[in-house]
Structures are given as C-alpha cells and as structure tokens.
C-alpha cells in the first residue's frame, strides 16, 4: 500500500501454491495394519531424533546385571559365575518388563502435548496409534535384550540351549512385553501427568519383578510368599526363559505365559480403548 520499508516485509503467501494444495486428491483409506505400522514408524523416528530415550533400555539393564552379579552373586550362589547362569535370564525378563513402563509415559506425554487430538481426529482404525506405539516399543525391547545378552556373554554366561534357545526366549519375552504394555497404556489414559504414570508404574513394577524367582530361588521364602511368587506371571516367564536358554523346553510353562499374555490384552486392551475413545 505505502512505502514503509522500515522492517522486512513478511513473506507473501504463495497463493498459487496454496490453491494447488487445496485442490488435492482424496486417496483411499488404508487398512488397520498399514496405519499401525505407520505409527510404529513414528516411534522409530522419535528414537532417531531423541536417542537419549534409549537410556532406560541400555544403562538400566547393564547396571542391574553388574550390580546383582557382583554384589550378591557370591553370597547367593557361592560364586559370581554360577549366579550369572541363574540370574541372566531373570535379568533379561526384568529389563524387558521395566522397559514396558516407557510405553505409558510416552503415551501420556503425547496426550499432554495435544498431538493425540490430531491422531484421534483422523479417520483411521482407532487402536492404531496405540498398537503402532507398542510395535515401535518392540524395537526398544529387542535392543534392551540384545544388550543384556551380550553383556552376559562377555561376563561368562553360557546358555546351554544355544542360539535357538536364546532367540526363542527373546521372542516369547517380546510377546509378553507387548501384552503387558496394555496395562501401562490404560494407566496413562487414567493418570494426569507423565510423572504420576512413572510413579504408579514403579509401584506395580517393583513387587511384580522382585516377588518372583528372578533373583533367587523362592524355596527360602515363607510359605505365603511362595504362594504369591507362584501365581506371579513374571515367575512363569522367568522359568520359561531360563529353561529355553539352558536347553529345556518347559511346554506347560510356555502355555502359562501365552495364556497370561492373552489375558493381559483381553482385559486391558478393551479398557484402554474405551478410555481412549472417551478421553476428554
């Protein structure tokens, strides 16, 4: 309009470009698998951009393996080497279960920031943002598992079940972790802040992993506690992982783990979806 040039003019709106964009096409809607995988891709991109978030899957398992092996190994099993053979499969279970916690914290952060409103307003299969996030987490669990196993091998862990046993046990762990994560997605839709999600998760997690056979044989525990240990799904998971890694196939126990995994999804999956749909 006038000759005022004191400050740089704002970039003009490129009208042609806007017009072209608004004349866009309307592609066919993709199916549930593709949208879930696309959300999984998002999780991987986040790992790429914020690699710090891998601290829990790297440092935590290393710390625990070293601490338990060298602090308690001698006292619990006579020698650190012997304890390591017992402990390592258990630590692998604990590391994975602990890492699942992150799912809830990440989801809660998404909700706080508002990006979930965008996802929820999209015409896609509704559980796909959650399923996708959990698929992305499988990558994290795999990284965590690989680190624990490598460290174990370096320290002298010798799985009698060989590579096949190790791989099978990791696959089973991934299945269980994926299913357990629905508990955290549910929590993250109930609780208000990422901090409270972390707090509550830890309160569940510590008893769940310690009151099990991960660290010690429950034989020396009082009877009632042995009862608790016996029904804890983590105990069965640790037994299976231990068995597979050391060359036996505890078929009954594997069944147990698969059933409890299915139960976790069957219970917490639908609750999560109802909460997700009605989230304010």
């Amino acid at each position, binding site marked *: 309009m006038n000759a005022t040039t004191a400050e740089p003019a*704002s*970039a003009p*709106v*490129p*009208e042609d*470009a*806007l*017009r*072209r*964009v*608004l*004349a*866009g096409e*309307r*592609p*066919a*809607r*993709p199916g549930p698998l*593709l*949208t879930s995988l*696309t*959300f999984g*891709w*998002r999780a991987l*991109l*986040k790992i790429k*951009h*914020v690699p710090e978030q891998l601290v829990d899957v790297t440092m935590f398992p290393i710390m625990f393996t070293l601490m338990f092996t060298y602090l308690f190994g001698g006292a619990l099993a006579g020698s650190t080497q012997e304890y390591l053979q017992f402990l390592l499969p258990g630590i692998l279970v604990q590391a994975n279960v602990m890492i699942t916690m992150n799912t809830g914290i990440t989801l809660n952060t*998404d909700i706080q*920031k*508002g*990006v979930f*409103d*965008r996802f*929820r*307003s*999209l*015409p*896609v299969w509704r559980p796909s943002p959650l399923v996708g996030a959990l698929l992305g987490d499988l990558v994290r669990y795999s990284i965590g598992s690989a680190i624990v196993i490598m460290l174990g091998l370096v320290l002298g862990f010798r799985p009698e079940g060989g590579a096949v046993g190790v791989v099978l046990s990791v696959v089973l762990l991934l299945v269980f972790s994926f299913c357990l994560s629905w508990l955290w997605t549910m929590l993250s839709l109930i609780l208000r802040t990422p901090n409270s999600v972390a707090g509550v998760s830890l309160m569940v997690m510590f008893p769940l992993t310690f009151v099990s056979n991960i660290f010690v044989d429950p034989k020396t525990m009082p009877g009632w506690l042995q009862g608790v240990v016996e029904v804890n799904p983590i105990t069965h998971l640790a037994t299976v992982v231990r068995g597979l890694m050391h060359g036996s196939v505890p078929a009954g126990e594997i069944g147990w783990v698969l059933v409890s995994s299915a139960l976790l999804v069957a219970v917490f999956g639908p609750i999560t979806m109802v909460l997700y749909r*009605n989230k*304010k």
Partner: protein
Amino acid sequence: MGTFAIETRGLKKSFGTTHAVAGVDLAVSVGGVYGVLGPNGAGKTTTIRMLATLLRPDAGEAQVLGYDVVRDARAVRSRVGLTGQFASVDEDLTGVENLLLLARLLGYSRRRGRERATDLLDAFGLAEAADRQVKKYSGGMRRRIDIAASLVVTPELIFLDEPTTGLDPRSRNQVWEFVRGMVAEGTTVLLTTQYLDEADQLADRIAVIDHGKVIAEGSSGQLKASVGAGSLHVRLRAPEQRAEAERVLAGVLEVPAEPSADPAALSARISDPERVARSLAELSRSGIDVTEFALGQPSLDEVFLTLTGHAAEETPEEDAA
C-alpha cells in the same frame, strides 16, 4: 438455503460440576468463515472438540456436513480438519516427517505422500524448515505447520481453535492470509478466537459465546448495530476539566458519558449522531478545550461488554499458573 456445514441443537457438555457447554445452538452455512468469539473458559474449545468428534456431547445434537458427530463420527472425521489450540503435530519430528506421517495415515503412497508434504511446506512458506524438528520452529512457523497438517487431505471444513493466540502481529497477519486463501478455494472455516479484532477482520458471521451459551449471533455489522449507533470519544487538554465535560456531554447527548482509562479522555455511547456536533460546540462554549475527538462505530469490545457485562479479553492472571 441448502444444508448447513454445521448445525447444533442444545449441545451440552459438563465436566463434573462445570457446565463447559450449556446448550449451544449453531447454524453455520457452507463457505466462508464463521467466528466463535468468547473469553477464556467460555466453552469454545469444548464445542470444537465435540464437533470434531473428540468429545461426546452429554446432550443435544450436532451435525457436521450432514453427519451426526456421534453416530457417523468416522464420516465426520474423514471430511474435517482440526487445528487445535496446542501443538497438534509431533514436536520431535521434522516438518516433512510430520506431514508425511499424516499423508501415509490418510492413504497416500510413500512417493505421493512425500510430494504432498513438499507441496504443503512450499505453500506455507516452510520449505527451508522442512528438515528441522518442529520444536525448533518459531511460534508463527508452528501455527503454519499445524494448519498445513490439517490440509493433508483437503477438508471440506476446517476447525481452527484460536489460531493466532500468542502470535506476533506479523505472524498473525500471515495466518489470516492463509485463512482467506482457504476460504477463497471453497473451504468452510470455523474459527474460535478471543480477539474481537480477529473476528471482525475474518468472520462473515460471529457467534458470541459466554459461560457455555451463545449470547448473540450475526454479522459483525449486525452485532455492532445491536449495541447502538456508536460512540463519541473525546480527549481534553486539561484532565481536571473532565468532570465538568462529563456533565456537559451528558446534558446534550442525553446519555451518560463515561471516563476512559486515559485521565483526560471520556466517551459516550450515542443514540443520535445529530447531537454530536452540538455537544462539541457546547464544550467549547463552556471553556473546555478538546484536543481530539472521534466518532466511531462501536467496537466488538463494546459489543461484548454490553452483551455480557464484562470485558472480553481476559487479564493474564489466569495464565499465571
């Protein structure tokens, strides 16, 4: 008349004991900008979230582009775009990744998705920032990527929830230009704002909303007319004469004159413009020097004040927490 882009009847939503939306009736025609104007906490965002199928209404009905927001939620979702008040993109990802993510979710192939993302970034002047993480964007860029994200598949209707809150004037103008551009291409825009100025500039029709209810509806001209012919603003040379000037003006105009925040200024709402000249002459006869005077249509500010009994733009104390 044809069908409406948005039609609601008795829309209600409460959170606990707070009646966020307490019976909203809207009829928004296709095309153009419809402004929903109200202060913080008036129920604007809750209304938009119900219309965008993110919240289920407690009572009442809402149809968006002819589809019920509860029964045909999916049909609504595939036809509208939503730009929320807060970040509606992933801050950790880059601009192009965000748009590509949405393009893939909406059915574009990887190749076409990338083209689409590039086109959008170009159109919104973000080409150079394409590979930067969104958290490193400025406020204005953030808003533009937010809006671009709502256009990945061209929506028939776009909701913009306070699109310029917190932006500097230049970025605000830019957003306005985009809104006008979209409207020119036939998109219907429903925009909420707490800036009267913004509603005045952009919206063809405005619903004024307060405490979860629509308290007035019409074009900006109609809303202004409902308040009266306008007002006279006068600034005096000597502030100490204000009380006397108040009396003089009230006498001639036959309406009360009110002191403004400026200690030397006062204003009066007038019903009859004829009397204005006489009132100014009367001031000079009484020995009161006037340094400035203006006769204006009522601002939407005044409209709001008249309609609600309180000012529209909140003092920032609420944001302190």
